[in-house]
């Protein structure tokens, strides 16, 4: 009888240990899910909306339209802010946040900033590289290529 009670007691205790272990596993599982959710939501909502590609496309389109309409003469494109004035682009903003390059028949005729970074494959998904847009068209039998990139990011301040 004594042995039986002892035996039952031992079985009972073992069961209790099992239950406690289950409880720990449950809490651990909730913690893993919680941490995953917090990290995921933080990554998703914490990241800035990337608008640079759209902006680059907008400025490329503006320059393309401006050149093809003949508003800016390709011979004078480098003369005293001709491109900015004729195409209605704010010079300060363009020089602070954009890279612009215009080529005629493969030769650079206008350049602001380092458009080489637009060529890097690794820079495409990289937030530290400008996001670029390209366009090429023919004007008077000559191929005109435009590359623009935006490196602007949201500024938070008082």
């Amino acid at each position, binding site marked *: 009888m004594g042995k039986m009670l002892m035996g039952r007691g031992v079985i009972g205790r073992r069961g209790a240990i099992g239950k406690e272990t289950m409880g720990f596993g449950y809490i651990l599982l909730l913690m893993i899910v919680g941490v995953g*959710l917090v990290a995921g*939501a933080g990554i998703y909502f914490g990241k800035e909306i990337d608008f640079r590609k759209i902006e680059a496309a907008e400025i490329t389109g503006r320059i393309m339209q401006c050149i093809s309409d003949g508003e800016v003469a390709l011979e004078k494109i480098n003369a005293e802010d001709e491109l900015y004035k004729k195409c209605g682009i704010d010079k300060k903003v363009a020089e602070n946040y954009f890279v612009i390059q215009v080529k005629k028949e493969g030769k650079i005729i206008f350049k602001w900033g380092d458009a080489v970074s637009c060529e890097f494959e690794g820079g495409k998904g990289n937030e530290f590289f400008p996001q670029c847009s390209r366009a090429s068209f023919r004007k008077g039998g000559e191929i005109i290529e435009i590359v623009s990139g935006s490196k602007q990011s949201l500024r938070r301040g008082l």
Partner: protein
Amino acid sequence: MLRRARERLFWALNNGVKMNKRGASNEQIAGTAVYLIILSLFTIGMLLFVYQLSNRAALWEDYYAKEIVKIVNALKPGDEFTFDVHKATEVAKKNRQSMDNIFIFDNAKNEICVKLSPGKKSCYSYFNEIEFSTEMKFGVPGNVLIIKAKEGGKNG
């Protein structure tokens, strides 16, 4: 055989086996209830966390600043654009931010700032060399921002 079984049952009842069984089932119910309560609290907590995060002012400031810049970059002299800003006004109201100060336009610096909570504002620049005026209209049926580009551009 039947007699033996009846004797066993009586023995079990007399020795409190039934009571133990009830205790065990009560214990199980209590354990499950605790698990369910913890799970409910966890789920509510997580949902509140995600809701709070998605309702953050900074997120909406980012969105509206860039959307407005996109519109302004595409404006031509004489254009008029009506933009739904109802969500922005909702977030600003929730954060007790003055309605007159949600959208701040700086034509000289070519910059648009959005402020949906007291403290910091989010700013973004537009490249379009254009001058424009803005007007907020409430309840048409939602709240809208009207952007009017000046005829003749910035220098006209």
